[in-house]
């Protein structure tokens, strides 16, 4: 059903209302799922559950599966290059084939991390409702989609019924206005927001990101912003579709073509929030206040401007926050009162569904060009998809990275989550462009500092956490 135009509505309300199959009372609705992305870690398990219940996939043509979490990122890899990859990857491939679900296997030119591949192929569309058994599904909201991560039981539910039961969340708008300073990236914007609001601020809410800063961002940057929505508890984050969105989508293989495109675009243009629509909560930020960020703790909200001082637990008001800061500093091996810049690092990981798109790799390559990775650092670049890898290589980015001493690897989740065995060793410190710095996330006892791609590349070069803005300019082509 098309959005009605009689009363002022938010983008979220337009998206939600157009997917209600049936109201189940008490704010609970049965919603139609337009798109289901399936990955290796939860996919074959859910399909097995479905089979065991004697059920079948209701609309396999609206699904798309691919291996990402468990695959090796080793150059020249096959499924067999990672111990889990074989079992999970083969099971996903075979079960997808049996169910009639389109599958981008490890050798497919479109394989990659689900949250990279959905938008870049046009599988993810404005106005669509998309779910996936992965919490960072909020990423797809950057396309003007209603998208969120679901659990295993819900995944089986979607496979069987092409619907999901969902309680309507509250609405929250985060407006960022103004021009970002030099060297400040989308990742810094969202880390700054999470740091300011706290890791539970979005709980129960659907977030819309708005304002001139967001409006000026590319789709890739908006995807980075929406990706981290879940890190402050929000189930979904979204940006209204606009000309940037349509320009990005037009001509993508799975996007509507010709007359279907024209009809779709007209429809999409009716979706954005009306001027007089009301949100349950509003927060505003100024772009000028945002500096390049680096996290110091074990939660994405424990973040600092890169020129900041590591906080002492006593500087937090609540006892709980003090305790969290104390345990985080202990785990991270950091000392309160010192500058975070200058902290030695062992590894740098540029990758993940947060920051492994072409523009992220360009940013990192700009920093790497003509410089050398410090002797004490192992630095990886893991493109988010085969397509990103192909495009990056066409631009010669891989040559820049390789010449600087970075490893140039194959697409997948890799060290974001270390499911494929690519761990950061115990006690090692890693600057990572991923989205989670939780205890043990990159491997047991691994210490993770989240940052944007330029800051991560700068850390690789300097061998320590450093302000990318302070790196001396280089000349030459490296």
């Amino acid at each position, binding site marked *: 059903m*098309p959005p009605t135009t009689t009363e002022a509505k938010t983008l979220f309300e337009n998206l939600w209302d157009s997917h209600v199959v049936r109201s189940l009372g008490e704010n609970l609705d049965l919603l*139609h799922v337009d798109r289901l992305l399936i990955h290796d870690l939860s996919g074959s398990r859910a399909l097995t559950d479905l089979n065991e219940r004697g059920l079948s996939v209701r609309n396999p043509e609206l699904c798309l599966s691919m291996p990402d979490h*468990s695959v090796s990122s080793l150059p020249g890899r096959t499924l067999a290059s990672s111990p889990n990859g074989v079992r999970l990857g083969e099971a996903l491939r075979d079960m997808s084939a049996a169910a009639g679900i389109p599958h981008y296997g490890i050798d497919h030119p479109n394989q990659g991390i689900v949250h990279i591949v959905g938008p870049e192929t046009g599988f993810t569309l404005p106005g669509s409702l998309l779910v996936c058994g992965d919490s960072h599904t909020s990423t797809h909201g950057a396309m003007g989609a209603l998208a969120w991560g679901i659990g295993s*039981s819900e995944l089986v539910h979607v496979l069987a019924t092409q619907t999901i039961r969902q309680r309507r969340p509250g609405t929250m708008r985060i407006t960022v206005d103004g021009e970002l300073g030099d060297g400040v990236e989308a990742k810094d914007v969202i880390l700054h927001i999470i740091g300011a609001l706290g890791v539970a601020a979005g709980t129960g809410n659907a977030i819309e990101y708005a304002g001139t800063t967001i409006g000026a961002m590319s789709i890739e940057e908006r995807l980075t912003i929406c990706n981290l929505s879940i890190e402050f508890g929000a189930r979904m984050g979204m940006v209204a579709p606009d000309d940037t969105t349509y320009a990005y989508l037009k001509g993508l293989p799975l996007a509507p073509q010709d007359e279907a495109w024209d009809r779709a675009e007209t429809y999409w243009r009716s979706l954005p929030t009306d001027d007089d629509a009301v949100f349950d909560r509003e927060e505003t930020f100024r772009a000028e206040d945002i500096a390049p960020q680096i996290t110091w703790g074990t939660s994405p909200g424990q973040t600092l401007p890169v020129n900041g001082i590591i906080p002492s637990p006593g500087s937090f008001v609540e006892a*709980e926050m003090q305790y*969290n800061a104390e345990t985080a500093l202990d785990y991270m091996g950091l000392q309160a009162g010192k500058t975070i810049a200058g902290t030695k690092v062992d590894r740098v990981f540029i990758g993940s569904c947060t920051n492994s798109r072409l523009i992220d790799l360009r940013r990192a390559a700009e920093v790497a060009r003509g410089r050398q990775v410090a002797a004490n650092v192992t630095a990886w670049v893991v493109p988010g998809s085969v397509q990103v890898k192909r495009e990056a290589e066409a631009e010669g980015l891989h040559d820049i990275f390789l010449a600087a001493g970075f490893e140039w690897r194959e697409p997948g989740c890799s060290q974001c989550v270390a499911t494929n065995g690519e761990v950061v060793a115990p006690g090692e410190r890693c600057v990572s462009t991923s989205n989670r710095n939780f205890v043990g996330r990159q491997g047991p006892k691994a210490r993770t500092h989240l940052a944007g791609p330029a800051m991560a590349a700068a850390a690789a070069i300097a061998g320590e956490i450093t302000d990318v803005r302070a790196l001396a300019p280089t000349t030459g082509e490296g």
Partner: protein
Amino acid sequence: MEKLQSLAGVAAPLPRANIDTDIITPMKFLTNARFDNMHERAFEPLRFLADGGENPDFILNKPRYRNAKFLITGRNFGCGSSRETAVWGIKGLGIRCVIAESFGDIFFNNCFQNSVLPIRLPAETIAELMAEAGDDQGNMQFQVDVATRTLTTPSGRSITFDLTVDRQTSLLEGLDDIAQTMKDDADTAAFQTEDRTERPWIYDLGTID
């Protein structure tokens, strides 16, 4: 799904905020072929020491709390990933009711898919409940009654909690969402028929090869 009508047992106080799903079931277990043993290493970073042995200071390792059926904890419990193993791990430890100031959204939903009851209560109440749970002088028995939405503490204090009727019914009757929705499939079919004329591009993806 099994029913959850009432529950009685010891409550373990775990006064810590933002316990995420990576703490409850670390990622390395998610590639297991089986998920019915998730409790074995649940809460690993807190529950076990570096040498693999039990951490005697962790609440669920203390003799009095080993058979806890309730967990009382800080805010934003179960934040992080969508992994349902977090609920399976907790349930496998025998915990069927988690009481916290707030929860990660997905975790909260996942609880109801597995007959585990999450209860949200204000911070002051949580603090009082933790004090009662930590006091081993009395009978230590907490009780919950789903039909009346009541939590009763060892001291006899009775607290009503929020629970929507659909969730209450599914716990009481052990109802499964999938079977229920499949009964409404005619509605889904009708939605798709109408939607196909409205948004044909959703259904005609072109060839994915």
